């Protein structure tokens, strides 16, 4: 596999080494050495917690800028349903769609059909699945990466059905190149994303295939521009363009609604990494086998609570519910289109997902056992305070780092009291100069 990429960058200049990210990271992928945070790439699952907690704004998502979008001839926005829940109660999806056109997109894709298609493909897959259960949704890239890194034995339980955003990008390229006579390579499918994780799923899909999407723009990135267009009015040309959005579209972004066609007693929606980890621990022990399908979103509250959204989760969800309630449902044209495409398209994941290879798990079993024993031995000399001053989030990770030759045991301030001088120079003197 090529070098792992991530959906964010740590700006070393701006980083003050304050360790919020290191302490928040659920997979303990961050170390802070010499006052600067850095990433153990292979452990990072792109959940974006580090970006949310950074007090100095040194961690930023690597979404596309508008200038970068200009290199494409024909740009189509595929908007996460979460986008439409960000604005005022009277701002309709149609007006938000028109604002996207004003911002320079050549078209806004009607995404609800793709969501409905995947909903059906998932229901069909669950019905045919021989086991093991439960199957786990893969639309949240953080969940996929969490399983690949921390639950390797559950990788085969990630449902082998592609995400709707991918299906949408594939179809829109086919359709526009046919209708408008543009080469498919000149059409860009740009996802309007509620989280940084989906940018990485486009840059480097977990199944090691090439994404049908060409990039992502964060909701927070274009929020102000859209709001401005909504408030100052739209130009006549775009104001007259018709969009037909159906209510089905808004299920996808919120939990408990992704797969309305599955029966409630066999289907469990879960949001928030902490809860997901608890449930995955149980599954790995063989529990929850009576559940057929787990819908998991790493962000609390699902995609409407994504780390690149703007509106408060609860307000956004209320708007979302309102949109769902007010949208026309099962318009016959919508149903026709779903049936037409369902009959001819393949929705399966193009390649199977594999556990991620972690350094420290390489080498032979004997070497790995020795390293583990060494780490256990080293841990006995550490204070178990998890103070983080060594640069690792816990004493245990420090011991493991030392056993894997990634750190010196003496980085612990209890073992080398002199290190306080060094730390004072890094943190206190640093503040004096401010």
């Amino acid at each position, binding site marked *: 596999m090529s070098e792992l990429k991530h959906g964010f960058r740590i700006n070393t200049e701006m980083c003050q080494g304050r360790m919020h990210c290191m302490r928040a990271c659920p997979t303990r992928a961050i170390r802070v050495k010499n006052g600067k945070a850095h990433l153990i790439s292979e452990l990072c699952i792109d959940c974006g917690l580090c970006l949310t907690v950074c007090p100095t704004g040194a961690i930023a998502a690597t979404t596309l800028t508008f200038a970068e979008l200009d290199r494409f001839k024909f740009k189509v926005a595929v908007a996460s349903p979460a986008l439409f829940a960000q604005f005022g109660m009277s701002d309709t999806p149609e007006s938000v769609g028109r604002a996207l056109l004003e911002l320079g997109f050549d078209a806004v894709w009607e995404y609800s059909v793709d969501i409905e298609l995947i909903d059906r493909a998932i229901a069909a897959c669950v019905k045919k699945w021989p086991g093991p259960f439960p199957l786990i949704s893969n639309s949240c890239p953080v969940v996929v990466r969490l399983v690949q890194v921390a639950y390797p034995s559950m990788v085969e339980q990630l449902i082998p059905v592609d995400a709707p955003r991918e299906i949408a990008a594939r179809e829109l390229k086919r359709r526009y190149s046919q209708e408008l006579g543009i080469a498919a390579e000149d059409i860009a499918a740009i996802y309007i994303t509620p989280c940084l994780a989906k940018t990485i799923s486009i840059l480097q899909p977990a199944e090691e295939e090439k994404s049908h999407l060409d990039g992502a723009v964060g909701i927070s990135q274009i929020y102000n521009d859209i709001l401005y267009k909504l408030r100052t009015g739209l130009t006549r040309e775009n104001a007259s363009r018709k969009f037909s959005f159906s209510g089905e579209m808004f299920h996808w972004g919120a939990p408990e609604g992704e797969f309305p066609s599955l029966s409630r007693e066999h289907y469990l929606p879960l949001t928030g990494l902490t809860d997901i980890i608890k449930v995955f621990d149980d599954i790995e022990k*063989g529990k929850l086998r009576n559940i057929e399908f787990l819908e998991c979103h790493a962000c609390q509250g699902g995609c409407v609570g994504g780390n690149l959204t703007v509106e408060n989760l609860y307000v956004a969800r209320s708007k979302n519910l309102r949109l769902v309630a007010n949208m026309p449902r099962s318009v016959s044209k919508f149903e026709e289109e779903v049936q037409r495409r369902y009959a001819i398209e393949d929705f399966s994941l193009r390649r199977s997902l594999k556990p991620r290879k972690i350094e*420290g798990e390489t080498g032979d079993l004997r070497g790995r056992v020795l390293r583990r024993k060494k780490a256990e031995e080293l841990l006995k000399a550490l204070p178990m305070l998890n103070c983080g001053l060594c640069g690792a989030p816990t004493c245990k990770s420090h011991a493991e780092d030392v056993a894997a030759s990634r750190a010196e045991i003496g980085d612990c301030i209890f073992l080398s009291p002199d290190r306080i001088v060094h730390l004072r120079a890094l943190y206190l003197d640093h503040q004096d100069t401010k």
Partner: protein
Amino acid sequence: MTAMELLRECYEIQGKNFDKAGEVSGEIKVVLRDLGIDAAHLRRLVIVAFEAEMNVVMYAQRGTMTLIVTEEDINLETTDEGPGIPDIELALQEGYSTASDEMREMGFGFGMGLPNMKKNSDEFRIESNVGKGTSVFSKIRLPAHE
């Protein structure tokens, strides 16, 4: 000749403590995962460990689970001070259970524990003394070295 033993860890299991049930198998899972045991074998091991732990929690006063990793296989030995199993063959039948209603209400005791452990092991053996306790041995072979 037996393969060289690389790692031996012993864990205490408290009987009747449903709050903590699953903690030992959880710990074993983390140990084996960190050792880079491949996904398919890890899955089987975790199922065996969890079922073994649950049996001790449900029926015995206390027990121990010993994890032994060699270069060729992984072994789990679970020994408890419990009522023992009078008819091991019967206990190995799918669906046979002596669980109380209370246990079933908690979602355990559907008579799949021992059969499931056997199914997921490459070697499986039960020794039991009625009134004294039970020992369960499970071996899962690792793929040969490349």
